[in-house]
């Protein structure tokens, strides 16, 4: 009887314990998993389609083990994330991987912290040129490739450096991280990237009216000053484009401020209207500028004397270039060039003239003035770039950060443009009169330029990811409105050959995981411990005979019934 009671009592106890535990499980069932060892912000490579062909990184979610460059050769990396800091990056290695379509679980590039606009601050960059070239090459490679795994950028900091050092150590010992050997696991829990539905381009125009005296039957002539404000880069969440085209925007705002001072007084108001344009869609063949110009009244378009487009005037030393599409022998072009050269001489810098013919059948528009020229408006682009950029080049990439822009260069550029404009407006060509002299009330304000440049260097401005009422665009509009008579905002859809996908930034969780074999071993150890404990307790409290009788119970019962 005691024999039948013993298993019954044990089972009852176990059952009651299980029910208690099960109840507790149900009660706490909605508790989330605990936090990771480390969590960082990471920024995804851009994903876009051009004329239907896919480019960029086609995936966003990540859940793989991590490995560094020291991985043992011949190992299968299709379920591994490669983490490479920029200083160890070898472009040929990356190119080989992408072009040969080698399988990889994911790719994480660690950028130096100094390039971060959130934490880098204004520290100096070591080996500027080398880093710039490396980043430019990497960006060009990644933007024009179709990569079937997630590619992310992150900034180095102490935590991630310790993790990387650990991963390297494990790799060198010949133990790449997999499910059975432990190591680090990188998890980025995001949804599948979706197409951006109807990306908008927002053009902002400001109108400063000239002085119309009685007797002026016709409309006053207009001069346009235009700069495109949006960017495009390998990591859209990091494309702040300080030079391309943050410098242009800042220069435009400063010029508008100076002329608003002049035009506020009827005595000094010129006989020209001034039209300021902050256009979007720059990287995409200046699509926004084209739509903006098409929306003009015929009369307005004909009244434009000429347009000056500003593109990247933030990091030049002594030479600026004026790019035109009409031949240099053209009278208007000569006038613009002479006006700028005269002022340039006084400011002790050089301007050169570059002529590039436009091909109407070719949809590629490399400079903003070409959109004006296609509508028969005289225009020129002032830029530090001497070579025509390719599609999606020099549009504010990874290396285009605050450290690469020189505000003195922008100040000189503003002086150049403003002075030559003023001489044209007030008819002082050829005369040595400094309207915007230093120390005067009309001096160029470097503090204004610096503060706006700082703001621009912290705002990524990729057009498909800027909504219609994006706060930055509204801020630009408000700032321009403070300097001009009238501000208009025009919203257009970015259609054409480009399609974009969202999910530009995410949070990376790094977990240090133990392998399955470890847990199996642990189970074995615990099992044997409990068995030993059980036998020990049985022996000490009930005697050795009882322990042996536990294993001999069934035969003894059989014997009894027999």
């Amino acid at each position, binding site marked *: 009887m*005691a024999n039948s*009671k*013993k298993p019954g*009592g*044990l089972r*009852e*106890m*176990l059952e*009651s*314990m299980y029910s208690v*535990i099960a109840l*507790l*499980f149900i009660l*706490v069932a909605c*508790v989330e*998993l*605990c*936090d*990771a*060892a480390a969590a960082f912000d990471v920024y995804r490579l851009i994903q876009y389609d051009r004329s239907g062909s896919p480019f960029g990184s086609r995936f966003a979610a990540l859940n793989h083990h991590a490995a560094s460059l020291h991985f043992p050769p011949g190992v299968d990396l299709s379920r591994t994330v490669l983490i490479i800091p920029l200083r160890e990056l070898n472009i040929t290695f990356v190119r080989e991987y992408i072009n040969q379509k080698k399988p990889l679980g994911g790719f994480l590039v660690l950028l130096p912290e100094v390039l971060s606009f959130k934490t880098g601050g204004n520290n100096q960059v070591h080996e500027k040129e080398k880093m710039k070239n490396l980043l430019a090459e990497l960006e060009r490679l990644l933007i024009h490739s179709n990569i079937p795994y997630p590619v992310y950028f992150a900034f180095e900091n102490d935590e991630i450096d310790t993790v990387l050092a650990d991963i390297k150590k494990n790799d060198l010992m010949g133990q790449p991280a997999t*499910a059975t050997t*432990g190591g680090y*696991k990188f*998890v980025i829990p995001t949804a599948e990237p979706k197409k951006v539905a109807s990306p908008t381009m927002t053009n902002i125009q400001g109108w400063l009216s000239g002085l119309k005296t009685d007797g002026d039957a016709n409309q006053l002539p207009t001069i346009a000053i235009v700069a495109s404000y949006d960017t495009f880069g390998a990591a859209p969440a990091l494309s702040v484009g300080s030079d391309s085209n943050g410098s242009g925007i800042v220069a435009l705002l400063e010029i508008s401020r100076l002329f608003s001072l002049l035009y506020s007084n009827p005595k000094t108001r010129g006989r020209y209207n001034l039209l300021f344009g902050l256009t979007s869609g720059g990287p995409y063949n200046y699509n926004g500028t084209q739509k903006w110009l098409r929306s003009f009244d015929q009369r307005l378009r004909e009244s434009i004397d000429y347009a000056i487009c500003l593109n990247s005037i933030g990091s030049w030393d002594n030479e600026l270039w004026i790019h035109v599409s009409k031949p240099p022998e053209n009278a208007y072009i000569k006038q613009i060039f002479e006006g700028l050269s005269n002022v340039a001489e006084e400011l002790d810098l050089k301007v050169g003239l570059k002529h590039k013919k436009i091909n109407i059948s070719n949809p590629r528009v490399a400079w903003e003035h070409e959109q004006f020229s296609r509508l028969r408006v005289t225009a020129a682009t002032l830029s530090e770039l001497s070579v025509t950029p390719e599609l999606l080049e020099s549009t504010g990439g990874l290396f285009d950060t605050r450290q690469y822009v020189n505000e003195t260069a922008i100040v000189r550029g503003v002086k150049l443009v403003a002075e030559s404009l003023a001489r044209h407006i007030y008819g002082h060509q050829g005369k040595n009169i400094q309207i915007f002299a230093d120390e005067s009330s009309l001096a160029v304000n470097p503090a204004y330029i610096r503060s706006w440049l700082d703001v621009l260097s912290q705002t990524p401005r990729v057009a498909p990811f800027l909504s219609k009422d994006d706060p930055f665009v509204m801020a630009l509009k408000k700032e321009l409105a403070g300097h001009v008579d009238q501000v208009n905002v025009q919203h257009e859809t970015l259609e054409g050959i480009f399609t974009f996908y969202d999910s530009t930034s995410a949070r990376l969780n790094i*977990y*240090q*995981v*133990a392998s*399955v074999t470890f*847990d199996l071993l*642990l*189970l074995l150890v*615990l099992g044997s*411990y*409990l068995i030993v*404990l*059980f*036998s*020990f*307790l*049985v022996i000490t*409290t*009930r005697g050795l005979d009882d322990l042996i009788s536990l294993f001999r119970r069934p035969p003894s019962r059989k014997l009894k019934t027999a």
Partner: protein
Amino acid sequence: MTMFHFFNCAILTFGPHAVYYSATPLSEYDTLGTSVKAALVYLGTALVKLVCLATVLKVSENDGFDPYQELLKAVIGFIDVAGLYFALTQLIHRNISQNHKFQAVGLGWAFADSVLHRLAPLWVGARGLEFTWDFILQGLEANANLVLSISLAALGSLMWLRKNKPKTLIPIIYTCAGIVATMPSITSYLRRGLGWDFPKVVVFELFTSLSMAFISWQLFSACQRPS
């Protein structure tokens, strides 16, 4: 895989209690009711301790060792002893020998302690992807706690339930009971005041629990000889 780790740590933390119950004659005499009652008494004691701690202690900014606060915590720790006294003497148990009574009470006490202090962190922490040694160490601590609770219950039953004790052994019994009762304060002093890290503290706990168990077993058998 992580549920696997959770399962492992759970059997390390709660397995020994089940094994103890089934291996010793406790299961034969069906002393589950006593253990459950002891567990409930533990819950009540924990509540009372919480209220006292909340009223008496002030929150310190740094994690250092404040002797006055620790002294207060040790005094409040004696409420534990009072609870154990209540469980041993005041509750009505069925006819089970004194030998099994203290074991059942100690087992229920330790089980309630483990569940209250270790189940929630285990559920929340061990299921995640991140691996730490903490939960295995916590399981070992639960084992040490089981041994300590049973020895405290043994000493308690000697102090309050046994009427005829050899006079010479009485002071030893009381000192041992005092040491076992103040064990939580000693461990927290080691962790905060001396700055020992968790593995060291767990090793210390295991060692002291085994030695105290041995001493109390000797005392118990010594007291049992006359009868």
